[in-house]
Protein backbone atom coordinates (compact mmCIF):
# COMPACT_ATOMS: atom_id res chain seq x y z
CA UNK A 1 0.00 0.00 0.00
CA UNK A 2 1.46 3.32 -1.03
CA UNK A 3 1.14 6.87 0.11
CA UNK A 4 -1.59 7.37 -2.46
CA UNK A 5 -4.04 5.28 -0.45
CA UNK A 6 -3.89 7.82 2.32
CA UNK A 7 -6.59 10.42 2.62
CA UNK A 8 -5.32 13.73 3.94
CA UNK A 9 -7.58 15.92 5.98
CA UNK A 10 -6.64 19.53 6.52
CA UNK A 11 -8.48 21.35 9.27
CA UNK A 12 -7.55 23.43 12.27
CA UNK A 13 -10.45 22.12 14.33
CA UNK A 14 -9.96 18.93 16.34
CA UNK A 15 -13.66 18.09 16.54
CA UNK A 16 -14.10 18.40 12.78
CA UNK A 17 -11.14 16.18 12.14
CA UNK A 18 -12.56 13.51 14.45
CA UNK A 19 -15.94 13.71 12.80
CA UNK A 20 -14.54 13.51 9.28
CA UNK A 21 -12.21 10.68 10.22
CA UNK A 22 -15.13 8.71 11.68
CA UNK A 23 -17.11 9.22 8.51
CA UNK A 24 -14.19 8.14 6.36
CA UNK A 25 -13.67 5.02 8.47
CA UNK A 26 -17.31 4.09 8.02
CA UNK A 27 -16.84 4.49 4.28
CA UNK A 28 -13.84 2.19 4.32
CA UNK A 29 -11.07 4.80 4.23
CA UNK A 30 -9.20 3.83 7.35
CA UNK A 31 -5.89 5.42 6.48
CA UNK A 32 -6.13 9.09 7.23
CA UNK A 33 -3.60 11.79 8.08
CA UNK A 34 -4.16 15.27 9.36
CA UNK A 35 -2.75 18.72 8.79
CA UNK A 36 -3.81 21.72 10.77
CA UNK A 37 -1.49 24.18 9.10
CA UNK A 38 -2.24 24.98 5.46
CA UNK A 39 1.33 25.95 4.68
CA UNK A 40 2.86 22.75 6.02
CA UNK A 41 0.21 20.73 4.16
CA UNK A 42 1.22 22.44 0.92
CA UNK A 43 4.90 21.80 1.67
CA UNK A 44 4.17 18.13 2.26
CA UNK A 45 1.96 17.65 -0.80
CA UNK A 46 4.61 19.36 -2.91
CA UNK A 47 7.02 16.46 -2.33
CA UNK A 48 4.61 13.60 -1.75
CA UNK A 49 2.06 12.50 -4.30
CA UNK A 50 -1.44 12.34 -2.88
CA UNK A 51 -4.72 11.35 -4.41
CA UNK A 52 -7.28 12.94 -2.14
CA UNK A 53 -7.08 15.86 0.24
CA UNK A 54 -10.10 16.96 2.18
CA UNK A 55 -10.08 20.58 3.21
CA UNK A 56 -12.43 20.98 6.10
CA UNK A 57 -13.80 24.42 7.06
CA UNK A 58 -10.53 26.14 7.95
CA UNK A 59 -6.79 25.73 8.30
CA UNK A 60 -4.54 27.75 10.54
CA UNK A 61 -2.63 30.07 8.30
CA UNK A 62 -4.40 30.42 4.95
CA UNK A 63 -7.89 31.16 3.74
CA UNK A 64 -9.64 28.23 2.11
CA UNK A 65 -9.26 29.73 -1.35
CA UNK A 66 -5.57 30.50 -0.79
CA UNK A 67 -5.01 26.97 0.43
CA UNK A 68 -6.70 25.36 -2.57
CA UNK A 69 -4.81 27.65 -4.95
CA UNK A 70 -1.49 26.72 -3.33
CA UNK A 71 -2.26 23.00 -3.53
CA UNK A 72 -3.05 23.29 -7.24
CA UNK A 73 0.13 25.24 -7.83
CA UNK A 74 2.41 22.61 -6.33
CA UNK A 75 0.63 19.75 -8.12
CA UNK A 76 -0.06 21.34 -11.48
CA UNK A 77 0.20 18.37 -13.77
CA UNK A 78 -0.78 15.70 -11.27
CA UNK A 79 -4.15 14.36 -10.43
CA UNK A 80 -5.24 15.56 -6.99
CA UNK A 81 -8.81 15.51 -5.79
CA UNK A 82 -9.33 18.52 -3.53
CA UNK A 83 -12.59 18.10 -1.69
CA UNK A 84 -13.79 21.11 0.27
CA UNK A 85 -16.17 20.63 3.20
CA UNK A 86 -17.77 23.76 4.59
CA UNK A 87 -20.90 25.22 6.08
CA UNK A 88 -20.32 28.55 4.38
CA UNK A 89 -22.89 28.83 1.59
CA UNK A 90 -22.28 32.45 0.64
CA UNK A 91 -21.73 33.11 -3.02
CA UNK A 92 -18.47 34.86 -2.24
CA UNK A 93 -17.04 31.78 -0.54
CA UNK A 94 -18.26 29.37 -3.21
CA UNK A 95 -16.87 31.46 -6.06
CA UNK A 96 -13.60 31.75 -4.17
CA UNK A 97 -12.98 28.04 -3.66
CA UNK A 98 -14.28 27.04 -7.08
CA UNK A 99 -12.07 29.55 -8.83
CA UNK A 100 -9.13 28.39 -6.73
CA UNK A 101 -9.65 24.93 -8.17
CA UNK A 102 -11.43 22.64 -5.72
CA UNK A 103 -12.62 19.51 -7.49
CA UNK A 104 -15.48 18.72 -5.14
CA UNK A 105 -17.62 20.57 -2.62
CA UNK A 106 -19.65 19.19 0.30
CA UNK A 107 -21.80 21.59 2.28
CA UNK A 108 -22.72 21.05 5.89
CA UNK A 109 -24.85 19.48 7.17
CA UNK A 110 -24.14 16.57 4.91
CA UNK A 111 -25.09 12.91 4.81
CA UNK A 112 -22.65 10.04 4.72
CA UNK A 113 -23.97 9.19 1.27
CA UNK A 114 -23.06 12.67 0.00
CA UNK A 115 -19.51 12.29 1.29
CA UNK A 116 -19.28 8.83 -0.24
CA UNK A 117 -20.40 10.14 -3.61
CA UNK A 118 -17.63 12.73 -3.54
CA UNK A 119 -15.00 10.23 -2.42
CA UNK A 120 -15.95 7.90 -5.26
CA UNK A 121 -15.79 10.84 -7.62
CA UNK A 122 -12.04 10.90 -7.12
CA UNK A 123 -11.80 7.46 -8.71
CA UNK A 124 -14.03 8.63 -11.53
CA UNK A 125 -11.92 11.71 -12.09
CA UNK A 126 -8.79 9.66 -12.23
CA UNK A 127 -10.25 7.27 -14.78
CA UNK A 128 -11.24 10.09 -17.08
CA UNK A 129 -13.97 9.21 -19.57
CA UNK A 130 -11.59 9.63 -22.47
CA UNK A 131 -9.12 6.82 -22.91
CA UNK A 132 -6.26 9.27 -23.51
CA UNK A 133 -5.13 9.16 -19.93
CA UNK A 134 -4.73 5.37 -20.20
CA UNK A 135 -2.85 5.72 -23.44
CA UNK A 136 -0.45 8.18 -21.82
CA UNK A 137 0.08 5.87 -18.84
CA UNK A 138 0.79 2.90 -21.10
CA UNK A 139 3.18 4.96 -23.17
CA UNK A 140 5.08 5.91 -20.02
CA UNK A 141 5.60 2.20 -19.37
CA UNK A 142 6.77 1.66 -22.95
CA UNK A 143 9.35 4.43 -22.54
CA UNK A 144 10.71 2.77 -19.42
CA UNK A 145 10.99 -0.45 -21.42
CA UNK A 146 12.80 1.34 -24.20
CA UNK A 147 9.98 0.88 -26.73
CA UNK A 148 10.30 4.45 -27.98
CA UNK A 149 8.71 4.02 -31.40
CA UNK A 150 5.55 2.47 -29.94
CA UNK A 151 5.28 5.23 -27.35
CA UNK A 152 5.81 7.94 -29.95
CA UNK A 153 3.11 6.44 -32.17
CA UNK A 154 0.53 6.36 -29.39
CA UNK A 155 1.37 9.75 -27.91
CA UNK A 156 1.38 11.46 -31.28
CA UNK A 157 -2.20 10.28 -31.71
CA UNK A 158 -3.17 11.83 -28.38
CA UNK A 159 -1.69 15.25 -29.15
CA UNK A 160 -2.88 15.30 -32.76
CA UNK A 161 -6.45 15.89 -31.57
CA UNK A 162 -7.69 19.42 -31.44
CA UNK A 163 -6.50 21.04 -28.27
CA UNK A 164 -9.22 23.67 -27.97
CA UNK A 165 -11.27 21.27 -25.88
CA UNK A 166 -9.70 22.44 -22.63
CA UNK A 167 -10.62 26.02 -23.51
CA UNK A 168 -14.18 25.11 -24.44
CA UNK A 169 -14.66 23.22 -21.19
CA UNK A 170 -13.14 26.12 -19.30
CA UNK A 171 -15.63 28.63 -20.69
CA UNK A 172 -18.47 26.20 -20.09
CA UNK A 173 -17.38 26.28 -16.45
CA UNK A 174 -17.40 30.09 -16.48
CA UNK A 175 -20.96 30.14 -17.80
CA UNK A 176 -22.05 27.76 -15.03
CA UNK A 177 -20.56 30.23 -12.55
CA UNK A 178 -22.66 33.01 -14.07
CA UNK A 179 -25.72 30.77 -13.79
CA UNK A 180 -24.75 29.88 -10.20
CA UNK A 181 -24.69 26.17 -11.04
CA UNK A 182 -21.81 25.43 -8.73
CA UNK A 183 -21.37 21.68 -9.10
CA UNK A 184 -21.69 21.86 -12.88
CA UNK A 185 -19.02 24.55 -12.86
CA UNK A 186 -16.70 22.41 -10.76
CA UNK A 187 -17.21 19.48 -13.11
CA UNK A 188 -16.46 21.51 -16.22
CA UNK A 189 -13.30 22.95 -14.66
CA UNK A 190 -12.23 19.45 -13.58
CA UNK A 191 -12.60 18.20 -17.13
CA UNK A 192 -10.75 21.18 -18.54
CA UNK A 193 -7.89 20.61 -16.11
CA UNK A 194 -7.77 16.89 -16.92
CA UNK A 195 -7.53 17.71 -20.62
CA UNK A 196 -4.59 20.06 -20.00
CA UNK A 197 -2.86 17.52 -17.81
CA UNK A 198 -3.22 14.79 -20.41
CA UNK A 199 -1.57 17.01 -23.01
CA UNK A 200 1.24 17.92 -20.63
CA UNK A 201 1.94 14.27 -19.88
CA UNK A 202 1.76 13.34 -23.55
CA UNK A 203 4.23 16.05 -24.59
CA UNK A 204 6.57 15.17 -21.73
CA UNK A 205 6.36 11.53 -22.79
CA UNK A 206 7.17 12.44 -26.38
CA UNK A 207 10.16 14.48 -25.20
CA UNK A 208 11.43 11.51 -23.16
CA UNK A 209 10.94 9.07 -26.02
CA UNK A 210 12.85 11.27 -28.48
CA UNK A 211 15.58 11.75 -25.92
CA UNK A 212 15.77 7.98 -25.73
CA UNK A 213 16.24 7.94 -29.49
CA UNK A 214 18.88 10.66 -29.21
CA UNK A 215 16.80 13.03 -31.31
CA UNK A 216 17.64 16.21 -29.43
CA UNK A 217 15.78 18.60 -31.73
CA UNK A 218 12.49 16.81 -31.29
CA UNK A 219 13.21 16.38 -27.58
CA UNK A 220 13.54 20.16 -27.24
CA UNK A 221 10.50 20.77 -29.41
CA UNK A 222 8.22 18.62 -27.24
CA UNK A 223 9.60 20.05 -24.02
CA UNK A 224 8.63 23.44 -25.41
CA UNK A 225 5.14 22.12 -26.21
CA UNK A 226 4.81 20.83 -22.65
CA UNK A 227 5.88 24.24 -21.37
CA UNK A 228 3.18 25.85 -23.51
CA UNK A 229 0.59 23.57 -21.94
CA UNK A 230 1.79 24.57 -18.48
CA UNK A 231 1.44 28.19 -19.54
CA UNK A 232 -2.12 27.49 -20.66
CA UNK A 233 -2.88 26.02 -17.28
CA UNK A 234 -1.53 29.14 -15.59
CA UNK A 235 -3.49 31.35 -17.95
CA UNK A 236 -6.71 29.52 -17.18
CA UNK A 237 -6.07 30.02 -13.48
CA UNK A 238 -5.46 33.77 -14.00
CA UNK A 239 -8.45 34.23 -16.26
CA UNK A 240 -10.69 32.37 -13.84
CA UNK A 241 -9.61 34.63 -11.01
CA UNK A 242 -10.40 37.80 -12.95
CA UNK A 243 -13.68 36.39 -14.19
CA UNK A 244 -14.80 35.51 -10.68
CA UNK A 245 -14.10 39.06 -9.52
CA UNK A 246 -16.28 40.35 -12.34
CA UNK A 247 -19.10 37.94 -11.53
CA UNK A 248 -18.84 38.89 -7.86
CA UNK A 249 -18.82 42.65 -8.14
CA UNK A 250 -20.39 43.57 -11.48
CA UNK A 251 -23.70 42.00 -10.66
CA UNK A 252 -25.55 44.02 -13.34
CA UNK A 253 -23.04 43.59 -16.15
CA UNK A 254 -24.97 42.21 -19.13
CA UNK A 255 -21.94 40.47 -20.57
CA UNK A 256 -19.17 39.53 -18.11
CA UNK A 257 -17.03 38.14 -20.97
CA UNK A 258 -16.78 41.59 -22.48
CA UNK A 259 -15.53 43.01 -19.19
CA UNK A 260 -13.13 40.08 -18.96
CA UNK A 261 -11.84 40.76 -22.47
CA UNK A 262 -11.14 44.39 -21.61
CA UNK A 263 -9.29 43.44 -18.42
CA UNK A 264 -7.17 40.89 -20.27
CA UNK A 265 -6.42 43.29 -23.13
CA UNK A 266 -5.31 45.92 -20.65
CA UNK A 267 -3.07 43.34 -19.00
CA UNK A 268 -1.58 42.63 -22.44
CA UNK A 269 -2.94 39.07 -22.54
CA UNK A 270 -4.20 39.56 -26.07
CA UNK A 271 -4.80 35.96 -27.05
CA UNK A 272 -6.76 35.35 -23.89
CA UNK A 273 -8.72 38.54 -24.46
CA UNK A 274 -9.68 37.39 -27.95
CA UNK A 275 -10.94 34.10 -26.54
CA UNK A 276 -13.04 35.98 -24.01
CA UNK A 277 -14.54 38.15 -26.76
CA UNK A 278 -15.49 35.04 -28.72
CA UNK A 279 -17.66 34.15 -25.73
CA UNK A 280 -18.88 37.73 -25.50
CA UNK A 281 -20.10 37.94 -29.11
CA UNK A 282 -21.89 34.63 -28.77
CA UNK A 283 -23.88 36.15 -25.95
CA UNK A 284 -24.42 39.58 -27.60
CA UNK A 285 -23.81 39.23 -31.35
CA UNK A 286 -25.35 42.63 -32.15
CA UNK A 287 -23.35 44.81 -29.80
CA UNK A 288 -21.05 47.09 -31.77
CA UNK A 289 -18.97 47.96 -28.74
CA UNK A 290 -17.97 44.33 -28.25
CA UNK A 291 -16.96 44.04 -31.92
CA UNK A 292 -14.91 47.19 -31.52
CA UNK A 293 -13.23 45.76 -28.41
CA UNK A 294 -12.42 42.56 -30.22
CA UNK A 295 -10.90 44.59 -33.05
CA UNK A 296 -8.70 46.36 -30.56
CA UNK A 297 -7.49 43.07 -29.07
CA UNK A 298 -6.69 41.72 -32.54
CA UNK A 299 -4.90 44.95 -33.37
CA UNK A 300 -2.77 44.73 -30.23
CA UNK A 301 -2.06 41.08 -31.06
CA UNK A 302 -0.73 42.26 -34.46
CA UNK A 303 -3.55 40.69 -36.45
CA UNK A 304 -4.72 43.79 -38.32
CA UNK A 305 -6.73 41.95 -40.97
CA UNK A 306 -8.81 40.27 -38.26
CA UNK A 307 -9.12 43.62 -36.51
CA UNK A 308 -10.51 45.13 -39.69
CA UNK A 309 -13.11 42.36 -40.02
CA UNK A 310 -14.34 43.13 -36.51
CA UNK A 311 -14.38 46.88 -37.07
CA UNK A 312 -16.51 46.39 -40.20
CA UNK A 313 -18.98 44.40 -38.12
CA UNK A 314 -19.06 47.18 -35.54
CA UNK A 315 -19.67 49.86 -38.18
CA UNK A 316 -22.37 47.79 -39.88
CA UNK A 317 -24.21 47.85 -36.55
CA UNK A 318 -23.45 51.48 -35.73
CA UNK A 319 -22.24 53.60 -38.69
CA UNK A 320 -21.63 56.70 -36.53
CA UNK A 321 -19.46 55.01 -33.92
CA UNK A 322 -16.66 57.56 -33.53
CA UNK A 323 -14.00 55.25 -32.16
CA UNK A 324 -14.79 52.56 -34.74
CA UNK A 325 -14.55 55.13 -37.54
CA UNK A 326 -11.15 56.20 -36.22
CA UNK A 327 -9.86 52.66 -36.12
CA UNK A 328 -11.22 51.97 -39.61
CA UNK A 329 -9.21 54.88 -40.92
CA UNK A 330 -6.12 53.72 -39.09
CA UNK A 331 -6.41 50.22 -40.56
CA UNK A 332 -7.30 51.11 -44.14
CA UNK A 333 -5.96 54.61 -44.66
CA UNK A 334 -9.37 55.73 -45.96
CA UNK A 335 -12.59 56.95 -44.41
CA UNK A 336 -15.45 54.51 -44.06
CA UNK A 337 -17.83 56.94 -45.78
CA UNK A 338 -15.56 56.89 -48.83
CA UNK A 339 -15.08 53.15 -49.02
CA UNK A 340 -16.81 50.85 -46.53
CA UNK A 341 -15.05 47.77 -47.88
CA UNK A 342 -11.43 48.88 -48.05
CA UNK A 343 -8.70 46.29 -47.47
CA UNK A 344 -6.10 46.50 -44.75
CA UNK A 345 -3.32 48.92 -45.59
CA UNK A 346 -0.19 49.11 -43.47
CA UNK A 347 0.46 52.68 -42.38
CA UNK A 348 2.95 54.39 -44.65
CA UNK A 349 5.96 56.56 -43.91
CA UNK A 350 7.54 54.59 -41.11
Amino acid at each position, binding site marked *: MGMTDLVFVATSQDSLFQETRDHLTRLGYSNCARFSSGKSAVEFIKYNPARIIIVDTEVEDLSMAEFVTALREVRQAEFLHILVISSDRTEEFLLGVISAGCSGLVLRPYTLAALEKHMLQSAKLEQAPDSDRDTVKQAETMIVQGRYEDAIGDLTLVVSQEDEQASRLFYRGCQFLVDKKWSDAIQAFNQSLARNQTFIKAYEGLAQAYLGKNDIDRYRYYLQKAAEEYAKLNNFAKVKKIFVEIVK*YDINAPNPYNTLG*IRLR*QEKQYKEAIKAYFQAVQLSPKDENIHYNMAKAYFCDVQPAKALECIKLALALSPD*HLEALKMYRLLTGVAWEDNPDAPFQAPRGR
Partner: protein
Amino acid sequence: MAKFSTCSICGKLVDIDQESHTLFHCRNFLLRSFYGEKNEHRRARLQERIDALNIRMRTKGNNLLDT
Protein backbone atom coordinates in the same frame (compact mmCIF):
# COMPACT_ATOMS: atom_id res chain seq x y z
CA MET B 1 -0.04 70.16 -8.85
CA ALA B 2 -2.73 68.18 -10.62
CA LYS B 3 -5.86 70.10 -11.53
CA PHE B 4 -9.05 68.12 -11.02
CA SER B 5 -12.45 68.92 -12.34
CA THR B 6 -15.76 67.10 -12.06
CA CYS B 7 -17.13 66.02 -15.43
CA SER B 8 -20.54 67.61 -15.93
CA ILE B 9 -21.86 64.58 -17.81
CA CYS B 10 -20.80 61.59 -15.72
CA GLY B 11 -19.56 63.16 -12.50
CA LYS B 12 -16.11 61.61 -12.63
CA LEU B 13 -13.25 63.55 -11.08
CA VAL B 14 -10.91 64.12 -13.99
CA ASP B 15 -7.27 65.18 -13.98
CA ILE B 16 -7.49 67.84 -16.69
CA ASP B 17 -3.84 67.76 -17.76
CA GLN B 18 -3.22 64.02 -17.63
CA GLU B 19 -6.44 62.22 -18.43
CA SER B 20 -8.20 61.97 -21.77
CA HIS B 21 -11.94 62.06 -21.15
CA THR B 22 -14.31 61.61 -24.08
CA LEU B 23 -17.98 60.72 -24.12
CA PHE B 24 -16.93 57.07 -24.21
CA HIS B 25 -15.13 57.57 -20.91
CA CYS B 26 -18.30 59.12 -19.50
CA ARG B 27 -20.32 56.17 -20.73
CA ASN B 28 -17.86 53.68 -19.24
CA PHE B 29 -17.85 55.53 -15.95
CA LEU B 30 -21.64 55.40 -15.72
CA LEU B 31 -21.68 51.75 -16.79
CA ARG B 32 -19.17 50.77 -14.13
CA SER B 33 -21.29 52.43 -11.46
CA PHE B 34 -24.33 50.71 -12.92
CA TYR B 35 -22.70 47.26 -12.85
CA GLY B 36 -22.08 47.37 -9.13
CA GLU B 37 -25.23 49.23 -8.04
CA LYS B 38 -27.46 47.13 -5.79
CA ASN B 39 -30.07 49.79 -5.07
CA GLU B 40 -32.90 49.44 -7.55
CA HIS B 41 -33.81 53.12 -7.62
CA ARG B 42 -30.27 54.35 -8.17
CA ARG B 43 -29.78 51.69 -10.79
CA ALA B 44 -32.82 52.92 -12.71
CA ARG B 45 -31.49 56.51 -12.55
CA LEU B 46 -28.13 55.38 -13.90
CA GLN B 47 -29.82 53.45 -16.68
CA GLU B 48 -31.67 56.61 -17.75
CA ARG B 49 -28.42 58.55 -17.96
CA ILE B 50 -26.76 55.73 -19.94
CA ASP B 51 -29.70 55.57 -22.35
CA ALA B 52 -29.53 59.33 -22.92
CA LEU B 53 -25.81 59.13 -23.58
CA ASN B 54 -26.28 56.16 -25.91
CA ILE B 55 -28.74 58.16 -28.02
CA ARG B 56 -26.36 61.09 -28.15
CA MET B 57 -23.45 58.82 -29.19
CA ARG B 58 -25.57 56.72 -31.55
CA THR B 59 -24.67 53.51 -29.84
CA LYS B 60 -26.63 51.07 -27.73
CA GLY B 61 -26.44 48.48 -25.02
CA ASN B 62 -24.82 48.31 -21.62
CA ASN B 63 -21.42 46.96 -22.57
CA LEU B 64 -18.17 48.79 -21.90
CA LEU B 65 -15.92 50.06 -24.65
CA ASP B 66 -12.21 49.38 -24.34
CA THR B 67 -10.91 52.95 -24.36
